[in-house]
């Protein structure tokens, strides 16, 4: 398989080329087969590599093949090469596996859309770019994928471009991402130069990893911070998260694939890929963890007061991405990737479930107009329920294992801090609350839809429900690849990823009990590592159950309560409901200033100076020409007269001049 790893990104590219060249002359069936099969073949290839990896000893699990020299200029040499190791093979499996299911789902979801072909062309292009991002063996190729997925994200958010809100959201996503990509690009330059100064001119991950020790600590900090700016943009963290909720304007499968399962996790993948650099820069890691946990908390709180089901899921995605950044920030890269994987399952499922709900509700998104869908859409109901349990972190579901791993690492790692743990644990409880608020509001209680919509409610076709069921199965069992030692497992995924991430970040030398942990671990249990981990695990489960219970009381038992509560703290509610007015703040701080500057440049610099200069020159020449053309009378004899007069003057001068 080692020689065929280039096939993984190749198949989606082929699907993209086939559909965009001859797709318009063939049937819809052909387009959907090509698109789905392309992803499936990639998945099979990735699965084959994964199978081979399992046979190989841990240290031999790296396939690297270079197929073409892209740039060779002086010291700079960049190849189109692919690298598959434990990390990228897991990413490939997630991208192609979840991607395939979402492709199949889209066949049903987009069935009546006039842009059906265009949709699959973009989707294939996206998967190609994403696979380029995760399999590329150097930073520049990764950057190509990075920008490529950004482009596809823009195209797919603005898929229904006739709608102003959709095309605006696409532009917003693209522009906000530019800010992050700028940091990423500067980071690449800086890394290239800093390593070059030590005599190693390379962008290849393997070589950077081997020579990372040549960098000074300060350089590593700056480089990793710049890379993190890129991750902030792509993975929607504070302060650049604003584009992701708006990105929900795109078709729901797109939200599921790009804005939940794959593209937005690129930032986490990038940090995990460059873990050797981040491990050299503890300051950056602290920043990453803090931004992550703040984003997780902040986004979860916004989720409390939203009614648009896709917006709630979007804020939930931002929040879960925050969790992943906490994991990589405290050095638990494997836990971050583990959560990335389980999140792809349950969040992909949640979005597809939301799509199925929209399908049933004739496109309705506001959960105030839903309710009581349990009976009418049983498959959607049960799969959605599983996903909610998984994201809430109920033991036995995938989210529990990955989230608990992150919480434990945030607490115990020498890079972690009890405050980070505390905030993350509270966020986990909030997640359980708002997810079940969404769940109860959508599926339980009385149906609040209009009679006409109510009449049409129906379960989605099989092509949509089967991917839902498969993803539900994955959301249920996906966590069993990472059962912690404490519960008798062996944390297989962490072991599998260990060759990429190097030695584990050590546990705090002396787990120094602060007030919070001391309260739980009071008594004889305090000193014992295992019982502390168990205590934290039980605590987080209790927090999650508490969140679900509150949601149950608020939205099932006592539906009037949330309204009264909102009325009581109307100021706070108003503030949260309007997403803390962050969009308005950015509008005030950046957008208006930029627009004004643009206006100034347009009117004064361009309209007055440049236009004046160019048109003035042209005007002047034109006017001078208008005068001069009168000389050309067309009468031959006048020309002859001119020649003679000229000759007389010249000859006269030659005669007269010597006299003086």
């Amino acid at each position, binding site marked *: 398989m080692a020689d065929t790893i280039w096939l993984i990104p190749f198949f989606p590219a082929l699907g993209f080329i086939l559909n965009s060249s001859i797709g318009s002359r063939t049937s819809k069936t052909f387009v959907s087969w090509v698109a789905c099969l392309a992803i499936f073949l990639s998945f099979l290839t990735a699965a084959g590599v994964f199978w081979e990896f399992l046979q190989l000893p841990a240290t031999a699990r790296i396939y690297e093949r270079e197929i073409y020299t892209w740039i060779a200029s002086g010291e700079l040499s960049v190849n189109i090469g692919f690298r598959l190791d434990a990390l990228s093979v897991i990413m490939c499996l997630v991208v192609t596996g979840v991607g395939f299911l979402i492709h199949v789902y889209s066949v049903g979801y987009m069935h009546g859309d006039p842009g059906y072909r265009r949709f699959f062309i973009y989707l294939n292009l996206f998967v190609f770019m994403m696979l380029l991002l995760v399999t590329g063996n150097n930073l520049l190729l990764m950057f190509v994928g990075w920008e490529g997925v950004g482009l596809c994200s823009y195209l797919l958010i603005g898929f229904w471009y006739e709608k102003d809100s959709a095309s605006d959201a696409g532009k917003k996503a693209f522009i906000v991402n530019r800010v992050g990509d700028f940091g990423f690009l500067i980071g690449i330059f800086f890394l290239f130069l800093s390593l070059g100064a030590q005599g190693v001119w390379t962008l290849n991950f393997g070589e950077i990893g081997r020579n990372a020790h040549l960098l000074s600590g300060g350089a590593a900090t700056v480089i990793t911070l710049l890379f993190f700016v890129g991750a902030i943009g792509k993975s929607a963290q504070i302060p650049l998260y604003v584009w992701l909720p708006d990105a929900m304007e795109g078709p729901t499968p797109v939200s599921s694939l790009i804005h939940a399962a794959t593209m937005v996790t690129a930032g986490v993948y990038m940090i995990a890929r460059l873990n050797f650099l981040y491990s050299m820069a503890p300051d950056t890691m602290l920043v990453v963890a803090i931004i992550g946990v703040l984003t997780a908390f902040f986004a979860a709180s916004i989720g409390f007061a939203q009614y648009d089901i896709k917006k709630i899921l979007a804020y939930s995605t931002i929040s879960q991405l925050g969790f992943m950044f906490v994991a990589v920030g405290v050095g638990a890269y494997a836990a971050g990737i583990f959560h990335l994987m389980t999140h792809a399952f349950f969040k992909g499922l949640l979005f597809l479930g939301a799509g199925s709900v929209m399908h049933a509700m004739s496109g309705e998104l506001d959960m105030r107009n839903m309710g009581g869908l349990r009976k009418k859409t049983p498959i959607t109901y049960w799969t959605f329920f599983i996903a909610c349990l998984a994201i809430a972190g109920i033991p036995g579901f995938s989210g529990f294992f990955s989230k608990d791993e992150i919480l434990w690492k945030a607490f115990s790692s020498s890079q972690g801090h009890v405050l980070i743990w505390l905030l993350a644990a509270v966020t986990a409880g909030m997640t359980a609350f708002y997810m079940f608020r969404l769940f109860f509001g959508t599926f339980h209680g009385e149906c609040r839809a209009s009679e006409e919509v109510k009449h049409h409610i129906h379960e989605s076709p099989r092509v949509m429900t089967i991917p839902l069921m498969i993803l539900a199965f994955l959301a249920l069992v996906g966590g069993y690849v990472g059962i912690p030692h404490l519960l008798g497992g062996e944390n297989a995924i962490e072991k599998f990823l260990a060759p990429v991430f190097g030695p584990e970040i050590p546990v705090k030398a002396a787990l120094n009990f602060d007030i919070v942990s001391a309260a739980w671990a009071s008594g004889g249990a305090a000193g014992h590592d295992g019982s502390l981990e168990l205590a934290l695990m039980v605590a987080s489960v209790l927090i999650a159950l508490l969140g679900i219970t509150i949601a149950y009381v608020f939205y099932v038992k006592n539906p009037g309560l949330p309204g009264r509560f909102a009325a009581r703290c109307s100021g706070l509610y108003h503030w949260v409901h309007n997403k803390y007015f962050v969009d308005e703040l950015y509008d005030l701080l950046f957008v208006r200033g930029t627009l004004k500057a643009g206006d100034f440049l347009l009117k004064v610099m361009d309209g007055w100076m440049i236009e004046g200069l160019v048109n003035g020159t042209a005007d002047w020449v034109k006017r001078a020409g208008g005068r001069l053309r009168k000389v050309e*009378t*067309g009468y031959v*004899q006048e020309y*002859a007269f001119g020649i003679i007069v000229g000759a007389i003057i010249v000859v006269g001068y030659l005669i007269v001049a010597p006299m003086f």
Partner: protein
Amino acid sequence: MLQEIPSGLCFILSGILFTIGAIGAIIRRNVIVVFMCIELMLNAVNLVFIAAANALSSMDGSVFVFFIMTVAAVEAAVGLAIFVMVFRLQNTVNAYEVHLLKG
């Protein structure tokens, strides 16, 4: 025996002829006449050459005269051909009525 004519007189005569030719070329309207005036100017120049050659006892001037006569003949052929074409197109050979290149 031919009486030797002083070269100074020849120069004056050729100057007069040249001036008549030049003025005629500018003010006459009929292009045929203009053309004849140009021939007059050329021949005035020929006269200067001959006179100067004689005065200086040099063959150079006489050689130039042959060149000029040849060129004048060629010019006459080309020029007359152009006038024929102009007449066919514009139905006139009046220099004042042919001014298509007016700016």
